[in-house]
């Protein structure tokens, strides 16, 4: 059984790094890359396997309602592939970027703990276990945000930790109410018992979990921590947080709870549409206002999460496919754009768009890949962002949700607007700025080029024939609540 290895390998590697590395970070880098690479390979193998038959792993010899179980259906495996893909490029990018801050193995140890926590959240089939893994991931995220040792970073990390703890407390209360209403913590068993339970209790639980996990996903009324935390963290960590963490801890859990466990009644479907539309519009307007390159990208993350939440509110199979595809695409292009901002920050020593200028001569690779990322995020055809936004808009029209469709179109136009600002001032300006820091290294270029190529390559997932083999099974597993219950309880 491969499932426990997704938690065991990064956890073991994280502590092994602290034992074997002395003052230098060479062994830490090698060990971290080996473990993430092996995890990427087994997650791809696991995804291919999970397309046909889903996997259940029980952590002890007892039967299901008493033991903790790990569940892998194709949606879980899809998330695992995304996590490890971004993690691998992020590690390759980190090597020279983090050395420019400090040469320490602690970064890699925390990084692997973050991966262990996220894998646990994605895999687990037990709601309290989910809470524990979530805390592991958040704990290392707080430390990594403060890694650069500057005063803004401590401030952002403190804010993030306080907001995160409030939502975790809320989730813990939700877990307590769940246990008192259902007398079990296994998600599959809860899903089976939901129809027999009083709707009032279930609705309260849904509300608590929307707020709790909505804060982790940074949906708009709960977004205040994200721009600070994501713009203060080191660039590879920003791309991990924006690309993967808010999805694994926020969106993934919301999808799991609302589609597989508690179900989504019409009230919550409307709530999701409203929250999604708010996120898209408000965050876009806030992003237009920003001059700090990483803050602009952080606000853009909130707005793109809005698209996913809006699609979840529409609730048809096509919309869910759009949401799942957008999760993958957003991870890829937002990861890429944060790497670009990181290399600009390292080379020029500034994050202010007004102090940048014509960078195509100074940093050809960075500006070329930034252009691809921009085209992709603003939804130009042949790049992946176009297809996922198109799916969401089409699904909205098909489901008769005209307002949602209008807001999604408006959101795409606004995305184009603030990314035009990003390009115009950041990369296509008039004056040539003078470089201050070290040159962009080969590893950083490799990470950027890999993700830029993936920006184009992942659009083939939409082609009929490939779509049926990759995205459709994922959507089926999300929609099919009875399948999840029988997977967990059938043994």
């Amino acid at each position: 059984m491969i499932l426990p290895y997704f938690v065991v390998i990064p956890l073991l590697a994280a502590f092994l790094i602290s034992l074997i590395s002395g003052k230098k970070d060479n062994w830490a880098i090698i060990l971290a890359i080996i473990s993430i690479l092996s995890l990427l390979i087994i997650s791809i193998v696991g995804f291919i396997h999970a397309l046909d038959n889903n996997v259940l792993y029980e952590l002890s010899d007892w039967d299901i309602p008493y033991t903790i179980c790990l569940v892998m259906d194709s949606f879980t495996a899809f998330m695992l592939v995304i996590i490890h893909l971004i993690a691998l490029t992020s590690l390759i990018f980190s090597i020279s970027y983090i050395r420019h801050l400090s040469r320490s193995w602690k970064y890699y140890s925390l990084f692997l703990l973050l991966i262990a926590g996220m894998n646990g959240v994605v895999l687990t089939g037990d709601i309290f276990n989910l809470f524990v893994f979530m805390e592991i991931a958040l704990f290392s995220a707080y430390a990594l945000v403060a890694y650069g040792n500057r005063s803004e970073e401590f401030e952002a990390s403190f804010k993030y930790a306080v907001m995160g703890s409030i939502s975790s407390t809320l989730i813990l209360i939700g877990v307590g109410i769940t246990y008192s209403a259902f007398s079990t913590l296994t998600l599959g068993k809860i899903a089976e018992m939901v129809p027999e339970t009083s709707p009032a209790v279930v609705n309260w639980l849904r509300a608590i979990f929307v707020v709790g996990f909505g804060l982790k996903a940074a949906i708009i009324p709960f977004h205040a921590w994200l721009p600070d935390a994501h713009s203060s963290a080191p660039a590879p960590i920003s791309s991990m947080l924006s690309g993967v963490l808010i999805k694994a801890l926020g969106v993934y859990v919301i999808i799991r709870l609302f589609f597989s466990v508690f179900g989504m009644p019409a009230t919550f479907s409307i709530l999701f549409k409203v929250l999604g539309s708010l996120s898209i519009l408000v965050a876009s307007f806030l992003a237009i206002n920003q001059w700090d390159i990483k803050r602009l990208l952080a606000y853009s993350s909130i707005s793109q999460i809005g698209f996913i939440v809006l699609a979840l509110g529409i609730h048809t199979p096509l919309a869910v496919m759009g949401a799942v595809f957008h999760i993958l695409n957003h991870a890829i292009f937002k990861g890429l754009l944060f790497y670009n901002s990181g290399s600009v920050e390292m080379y020029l020593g500034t994050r202010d768009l007004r102090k940048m200028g014509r960078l195509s001569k100074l940093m050809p690779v960075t500006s070329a890949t930034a252009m691809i990322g921009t085209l992709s995020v603003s939804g130009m055809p042949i790049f992946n962002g176009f297809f996922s936004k198109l799916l969401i808009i089409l699904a909205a029209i098909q489901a008769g949700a005209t307002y949602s469709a209008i807001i999604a179109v408006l959101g795409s136009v606004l995305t184009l607007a603030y990314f035009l600002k990003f390009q115009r001032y950041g990369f296509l300006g008039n004056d040539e700025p003078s470089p201050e820091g070290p040159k962009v290294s080969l590893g950083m270029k490799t990470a950027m080029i890999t993700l830029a190529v993936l920006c184009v390559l992942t659009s083939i997932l939409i082609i009929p024939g490939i779509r049926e083999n990759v995205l459709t099974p994922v959507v089926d597993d999300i929609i099919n609540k009875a399948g999840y219950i029988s997977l967990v309880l059938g043994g």
Partner: protein
Amino acid sequence: MIIYVLCFILLLVGLYGVLTKRDLIKIILSLSIMEYSANLFLILFAYRQDGVFAILSKGEQAAGMVDPLPQALVLTSIVIELGITAMLVALAVRLYQKYNTFDITKIRRLSG
């Protein structure tokens, strides 16, 4: 019922502290109060009228015992909260070194 209401008031006291206090240490303390109330909620859910502790020995009936699972959950969550509190205190110390104050209205380099 009254005891649940009191526990909820404890939660609100903590939340009030987090939202209104200006001192970093007081915010951390308020956060701890919130977390204690969450733990208390879990223990209250598990309590049974006239229940005894959940250790199965000879001559004891399992039916009369309180539910031990939430107690195990609370034990785990206390450990997590200890970690979070230590982390927050460490951050507060570093913030004090950088800014020479615990007042959050003076610690504002980030905006918007």
